[in-house]
């Protein structure tokens, strides 16, 4: 018994990893859909996008790479669906080299579903460097700062950019970001020009971002993959996030069960040791 309790407290990490692998892959073969409750930050994000007038120009900031594709990719897809459904013009802006291509792929995949066309309804400004300097320059003159889109087309020739010259013409900031560089958006665009901003971080970054949500600097937030799942539910679509929701649930449950198992084994072992000490003390 003692040995069993000790083993349950010190399960080999290879067994743990194998269990995780199973818990993440098996749900793909188990069709199960349980509705989730929509949280307040997700509601606020939805309402913020809905409140922007149709045909307004927005910035879709995307700064994620392949590492966070699971969360940020799903969020980008969900948000882009809503933006396209709400008939907003958007420009993709990336400060990560991989983000430009990854986000472009998502936009190209979705555009036909909503009657969107690159150059006419949306554009991709591509990968840019020196975020702070870029924002300072872009706020005053977008055309001179951006110059061309990802294909080299001068942006002033694009129908989507008509009437857009400076930060005052931007009606919403959307940022999908696994790092804390979203604060540059707040500092250089949202704050000075009072542009509403919505944010989609990974679940790890979300606790820090709640401060900005509370202070009103961010108007809405998607909390990691679970936020993307809620958002797809609000939009009434079955996208990437919904398909991954079972994996998320099973992985979380595995971690919880392992934690509880380890604690039960530890408490039982402690109790057994205490009883043994009492018995030995009694015998003496």
């Amino acid at each position, binding site marked *: 018994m003692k040995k069993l309790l000790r083993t349950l407290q010190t399960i080999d*990490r290879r067994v743990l990893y194998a269990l995780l692998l199973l818990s993440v892959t098996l749900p793909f073969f188990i069709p199960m859909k349980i509705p989730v409750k929509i949280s307040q930050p997700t509601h606020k994000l939805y309402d913020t996008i809905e409140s922007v007038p149709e045909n307004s120009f927005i910035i879709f900031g995307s700064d994620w790479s392949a*590492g966070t594709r699971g969360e940020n990719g799903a969020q980008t897809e969900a948000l882009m669906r809503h933006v396209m459904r709400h008939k907003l013009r958007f420009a993709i802006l990336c400060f990560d080299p991989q983000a430009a291509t990854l986000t472009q792929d998502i936009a190209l995949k979705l555009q036909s579903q909503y009657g969107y066309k690159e150059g006419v309804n949306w554009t991709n400004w591509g990968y840019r460097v020196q975020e702070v300097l870029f924002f*300072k320059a872009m706020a005053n003159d977008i055309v001179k700062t951006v110059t061309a889109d990802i294909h080299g087309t001068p942006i002033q020739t694009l129908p989507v950019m008509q009437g857009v010259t400076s930060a005052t013409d931007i009606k919403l900031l959307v940022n999908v970001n*696994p*790092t*804390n560089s979203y604060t540059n958006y707040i*500092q*250089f665009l949202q*704050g*000075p020009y009072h542009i509403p901003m919505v944010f989609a971080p990974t679940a*790890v*970054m979300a*606790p*820090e971002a709640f401060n900005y949500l509370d202070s009103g600097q961010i108007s809405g937030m998607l909390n990691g993959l679970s936020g993307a799942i809620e958002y797809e539910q609000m939009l009434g679509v079955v996208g990437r996030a919904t398909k991954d929701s079972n994996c998320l649930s099973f992985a979380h449950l595995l971690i919880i069960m392992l934690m509880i198992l380890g604690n039960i084994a530890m408490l039982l072992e402690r109790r057994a040791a205490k009883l043994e000490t009492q018995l030995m003390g009694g015998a003496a």
Partner: protein
Amino acid sequence: MNHANVPVQILLPLFSIVIIAMILAARKKHLFIRRIQGLTAIDEAIGRATEMGRPMLCSIGLGSIDVPTLQALSITSYIIRNSARFNTRAIVPVADPQIFPVAEEAVREAYTVEGHPEQYNAEDVRFLSDRQFAFASAVSGILYREKVAASFLFGTFYAEALIFSETGQQVGAIQVAGTPSTTQIPFFIASCDYVIIGDEFYAASAYLSREPTLLGSIVGQDIAKALLLLVVIFGSLLVTFAPVLGAIFSAFLKGK
């Protein structure tokens, strides 16, 4: 914010004056700061590495030449000066080419100050990669190959923090971590033996060196925090009991 608004123009100079005043006061009077367990454990970790005859890893994070990285370098210097007395090897992986010459110089200086310049090995201060996960995999490799006995993780960390600390756990290293990156603190707490949270990180150099200037700076910081707390309490009371005055105060703080 590109330029200071009125609250910043008042608060920042006020806090600066308080901190400088306490620095000057500390030169005349001994000031007390409480025990910080994580920092006390540094000596214990160095001792363990010495006993086991295995090297230590001192990571200064992924930042460039900024305040957290310079602070991390200051702590690393202290660790190396202590370890130099016992001839314990310290490996310092660096992720940013701009901080690399600064780190090299700091480590060389640490050995020289302790009177052991011969212990400095240029290969032990190495630039690995400025790509986050390339750096993480390189540090993991070092932890495994060198069988590190003590791992010190101070500085700015991102998602790779857990990779460092869990790998350190796997090789059986004693781990002390401290970072201003609040999102990585939970991961360090789960996998490190000692963690320094929040502004204890900035108090570390004062705590370890006991230099009067640094102690005065810590006390000045605490007074500044107390002033900030008073502002928060005052604002909360105003908003609760006098909403009109609260709205005026709130607009003032926003700089309108």
